[in-house]
C-alpha cells in the first residue's frame, strides 16, 4: 500500500487468471455503484420469483370454490409473505438498484457520494430479506410455535400483540423489515447527496434527466417515511419483548396509532414505488418516440407535487376506522388532488408520443401498456378516495385489483421496460426482441385476466384474504379466470428469464448506444468502465448526446 496525494492507495492485480472465488470476492467487497445496482436488481428479481410463487400458490387455492389445496393458516402466511416480499424485497431493491446504477452515470459522476455506505445499504437490505425468510425455518425450530409471519403485510395491532401472535414469526417480520429499512434509508441518503453534490460541469438542476429528478423526490419520500415505520417497529418490539403497551388497547395503548404510523409510511411507500416507474417511462418514451420529453418543467413540478401530497394522504387507508367526517373529507379531498399532477404526467407522456416516430420496441411496449394501465389504476384510486365508496369496498378484491394495477400495471411493467432498455448498457449484450415480445404479450394478457377480473370479484362482494369460498356466491368463474391469468404471467416471466439467459449466452454486442438515446449513460462503453467517464463530461442541455449528434441544431438553443 502506498500513499499518494493524501490518499491511501493499494494496487490491484488486473488481467490475471482469477478463480470463481476471486470473482465472488470482487462482488461481495465491491463498493462500485454499478455492481451494487446490479446486485440490488438481481436480488429483487430473486425475491420476485419467491413472491410470485407465493401468489401462484394462493391463486391455485382460489381457482375453484371450496378448495383445500392450501390450509387456512398457510394461506395467511402466504399472503403476508407475498405482500411483504413484493413491497420491501422486490419493489424497494429494484427501485434502489436502478437508481444506484443510473444516477451517477446520468449526472456524469464517477460513483455515488458514499460508496461504502452504499455497500452497507445493500447488505442490510439483503440480510433483512434473509431474516424474513428464515422465519420459515427458524421460528418453529427454536420456540416451537408458528412458522412464517401471518399478520398481513401491514401487520395491524392488536393482531401483532403477544396474545394473538405467539412464537417469533411476527418478530421475524419486524426484524426483517427493520433491517432492510436501514438499507433503504442509506440508499436514499446516497442518491440524494449524489444528485445534489456530484453533478458534472453544466449539469444544472434544470438539466438533469427526469429519471434523476424523480429519484430525488423518491429519496426525500424514503427519508420522510421510512424512519416512521422504523420507529413504529421498534415500539412494536418493545411491546412484544419488554411489555410496553404502545399498541395494546387493553392496557391504555392505541391500536389505531399503529395504523397511523404504518400508513404514514405506507402511502408514501406507494409513491416511492411508482414514481421510479414514472422515471423509467420518462426516459423510455422520448427515446422511442424520437422526440424530446413534452413539458420537462411541468413533469418536474408534478413529481414534486406528488411527493408533497403523498405525505398527506395516509389516512385514506383508514376510512373504515371511524375517524369522523372532518378527517374523512380532508383525506378524501387531498387524495383526489393527487390525480392532478399524476394526470399532468400522463398527458405529457402522451404528448411526447404525439407526432413522434414511434418505435415499438419491447421497452416501449411496456411503457405504453403502463400508461393505459396506470390510468385505470388512478381512476379506481379516485373512486376509492371517496370515503363512502371505500366503506362499501374496503377489504374487498376491488382494492386488491386497484393496488395491483398500480404496482404491477404501473411499476412492474415499467421495470420490465427498464430491464430491456438498460440491460444492454449494464452487460453489453442485447436482449432478444422476439423473446421480449413473447414476454410482453403473455404478461400483458395474463395481467389483465388476473387483475381486471378482480375488480368484478370485489364489486360482487368477495373479501380479500379469505382462503376459500362457497360455490354459490357467483365468484367461481371470475376466480378461475383470475387464476388462469397467473399461469400466463408466469409464462411471461419465464420468457423474461430466458431472454436474460439467452442474452448472456448469445452475446449479441450492444455497443455504447444501441437505442440512439440522449442521456450521458449512453456516451460511455457498455458495460461502463469502473470509473464511468475517463474525463468528466460537460453538458449544455438536457440531452447532451443530442447536442453532439446534431451540432447544427443543439437543444441548448431551445431550452
Amino acid at each position, binding site marked *: *500500500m502506498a*500513499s*499518494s496525494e*493524501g*490518499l*491511501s*492507495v*493499494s*494496487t*490491484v492485480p488486473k488481467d490475471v487468471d482469477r478463480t470463481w472465488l476471486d470473482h465472488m*470476492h*470482487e462482488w*461481495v*467487497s*465491491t*463498493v*462500485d455503484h454499478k455492481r451494487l445496482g446490479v446486485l440490488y436488481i438481481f436480488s429483487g428479481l430473486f425475491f420476485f420469483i419467491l413472491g410470485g410463487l407465493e401468489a401462484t400458490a394462493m391463486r391455485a387455492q382460489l381457482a375453484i370454490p371450496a378448495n383445500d389445496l392450501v390450509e387456512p393458516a398457510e394461506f395467511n402466511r402466504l399472503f403476508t409473505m407475498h405482500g411483504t416480499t413484493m413491497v420491501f424485497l422486490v419493489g424497494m431493491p429494484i427501485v434502489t438498484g436502478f437508481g444506484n446504477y443510473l444516477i451517477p452515470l446520468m449526472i456524469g459522476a*464517477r460513483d455515488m457520494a458514499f460508496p*461504502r*455506505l452504499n*455497500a*452497507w445499504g445493500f*447488505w*442490510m437490505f439483503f*440480510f*433483512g430479506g*434473509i*431474516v424474513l425468510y428464515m422465519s420459515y425455518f*427458524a421460528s418453529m425450530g*427454536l420456540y416451537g410455535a408458528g412458522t412464517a409471519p401471518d399478520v398481513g403485510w401491514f401487520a395491524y395491532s392488536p393482531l401483532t400483540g403477544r396474545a394473538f401472535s405467539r412464537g*417469533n414469526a411476527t*418478530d*421475524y417480520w419486524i*426484524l426483517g423489515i*427493520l*433491517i432492510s429499512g436501514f438499507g433503504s434509508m442509506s440508499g436514499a441518503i446516497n442518491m440524494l447527496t449524489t444528485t445534489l453534490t456530484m453533478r458534472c460541469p453544466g449539469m444544472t438542476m434544470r438539466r438533469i434527466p427526469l429519471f434523476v429528478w424523480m429519484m430525488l423526490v423518491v429519496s426525500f419520500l424514503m427519508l420522510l417515511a421510512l424512519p416512521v415505520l422504523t420507529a413504529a417497529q421498534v415500539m412494536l*418490539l418493545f411491546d412484544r*419483548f419488554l411489555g410496553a403497551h404502545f399498541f395494546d388497547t387493553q392496557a391504555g395503548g392505541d391500536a389505531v396509532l399503529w395504523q397511523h404510523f404504518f400508513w404514514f409510511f405506507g402511502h408514501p411507500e406507494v409513491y416511492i414505488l411508482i414514481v421510479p416507474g414514472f422515471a423509467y417511462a420518462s426516459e423510455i418514451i422520448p427515446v422511442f418516440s424520437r422526440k424530446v420529453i413534452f413539458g420537462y418543467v411541468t413533469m418536474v413540478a408534478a413529481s414534486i407535487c406528488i411527493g408533497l401530497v403523498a405525505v398527506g394522504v395516509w389516512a385514506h387507508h383508514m376510512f373504515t376506522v371511524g375517524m369522523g367526517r372532518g378527517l374523512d373529507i380532508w383525506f378524501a379531498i387531498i387524495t383526489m388532488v393527487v390525480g392532478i399532477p399524476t394526470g399532468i404526467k400522463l398527458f405529457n407522456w402522451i404528448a411526447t408520443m404525439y*407526432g413522434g416516430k414511434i418505435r415499438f420496441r419491447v421497452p416501449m411496449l411496456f411503457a405504453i401498456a403502463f400508461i393505459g394501465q396506470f390510468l385505470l389504476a388512478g381512476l379506481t384510486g379516485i373512486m376509492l378516495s371517496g370515503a363512502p365508496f371505500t366503506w362499501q369496498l374496503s377489504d374487498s378484491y376491488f382494492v386488491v385489483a386497484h393496488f395491483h394495477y398500480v404496482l404491477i400495471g404501473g411499476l412492474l411493467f415499467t421495470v420490465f421496460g427498464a430491464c430491456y432498455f438498460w440491460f444492454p448498457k449494464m452487460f453489453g449484450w442485447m436482449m432478444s426482441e422476439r423473446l421480449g415480445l413473447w414476454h410482453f404479450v403473455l404478461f400483458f394478457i395474463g395481467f389483465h385476466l388476473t387483475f381486471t377480473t378482480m375488480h368484478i370479484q370485489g364489486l360482487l362482494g368477495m373479501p380479500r384474504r379469505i382462503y376459500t369460498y362457497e360455490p354459490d356466491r357467483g365468484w367461481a368463474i371470475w376466480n378461475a379466470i383470475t387464476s388462469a391469468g397467473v399461469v400466463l404471467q408466469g409464462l411471461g416471466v419465464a420468457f423474461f428469464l430466458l431472454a436474460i439467459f439467452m442474452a448472456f449466452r448469445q452475446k449479441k454486442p450492444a455497443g*455504447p*448506444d444501441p437505442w440512439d438515446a440522449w442521456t450521458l449513460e449512453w456516451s*460511455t*462503453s*457498455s458495460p461502463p*468502465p*469502473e*470509473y464511468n*467517464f*475517463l*474525463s468528466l*463530461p*460537460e453538458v449544455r442541455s438536457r440531452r*447532451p*448526446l443530442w447536442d*453532439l*449528434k*446534431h*451540432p*447544427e*441544431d443543439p437543444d441548448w438553443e431551445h431550452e
Partner: protein
Amino acid sequence: MTENEEKESLSLPASTAAPLFFAFGLVLLLASLVTNVIFAYVGAVIAVLGAHGWWREMLPREHIEPVPVQPLSERAPEITPQPASVEHLVVGEDGHRVRLPLEYHPYATGLRAGIAGGIAMAVVGGIHGLVAAGSVWAAFNGFASIVMPLFGASPPPDMLSFHPGIMVAALGVHIALSLLIGIVYSSVLPMLPGHPRLWGGIVAPIVWTAAGWAAVGLVTPDGAGAVSWGWFIASQIAFGLVAGEVVSRSTPVRTLQSYTLSGRAGLEATPAQGHPEDHS
C-alpha cells in the same frame, strides 16, 4: 466531452468487505432477539470488526485503488454528428391539430347562445304539445312534472292547462340550464374541429339525449316513460343548431397569451377585442 489520453489509471474507492461485515454483525445482533444470545455476542464482535475496518478505510486517509484506463479498443467511440436533418414541429402548420387558446368567445356570446337556443327549444316544445296533446302548455307541464318532484313540489294537476306558478318554475329551470349550456357551447364548440353547427346541432343532442335518458331513469323512474324521446331529440337539435349558429357568428376575443409581456402587466395599452389578425 473531451478525451484525456494521458491517464493510465484513475483512482476510485478501494473495494472492501468492511460494510458487509458491519451489516452482518448488526443483523446477527438483532437476530439474537429471536434466536439465541450467542448470536448477540458473535454479532457484536463481527460488527465491531466491520466498523473498525470501515473506519480504517476512511482514516487517516481514504483507501483508494488505481483502476487502469480501458484500452482504446474497448472505449466508446467518439460521438459523431448524424447527417439526418431535424424536422421541427410547427404549431398550426398543415396537418397539425394543435390549436393554442389564443382567442376565445366572450361569456356574453354563451349567454346569447343560451337564450336563443332556449327559445328555439321552447318553440319545439310548444309545437310538440300542440301536436301530441292539443295544448301548447303540455310540454311545459310535462317538463315541470319531471323537475318539480326533485324539489319536493307536487307535479301539475292538469297537464293541458296553464298554471302560472308551474310555468314560472319550469321557465326558471329552463332558462338557467339554457344559459349554462350556452356558456359551455361557446367555450367548447370553437375548440372542436369542423363546424360548430354540426357539433352543437347533431353530436351534442345525441349525447345529451343519452345522458338525459340515463339520468331521468335513475332520478325519477316513472318520469322516463312520460318523455317523448323523439321530440326530446328534436328540441335538443333546435337548441344546438341555434346556439351553434350564434357561437359561429360571434367575434372571438384574444387571450392574454397573445399580448406582449408589458401588455399583460398593464404597462401598455392592449387591444381588448377583435380577431388577432386585426391587431397584428
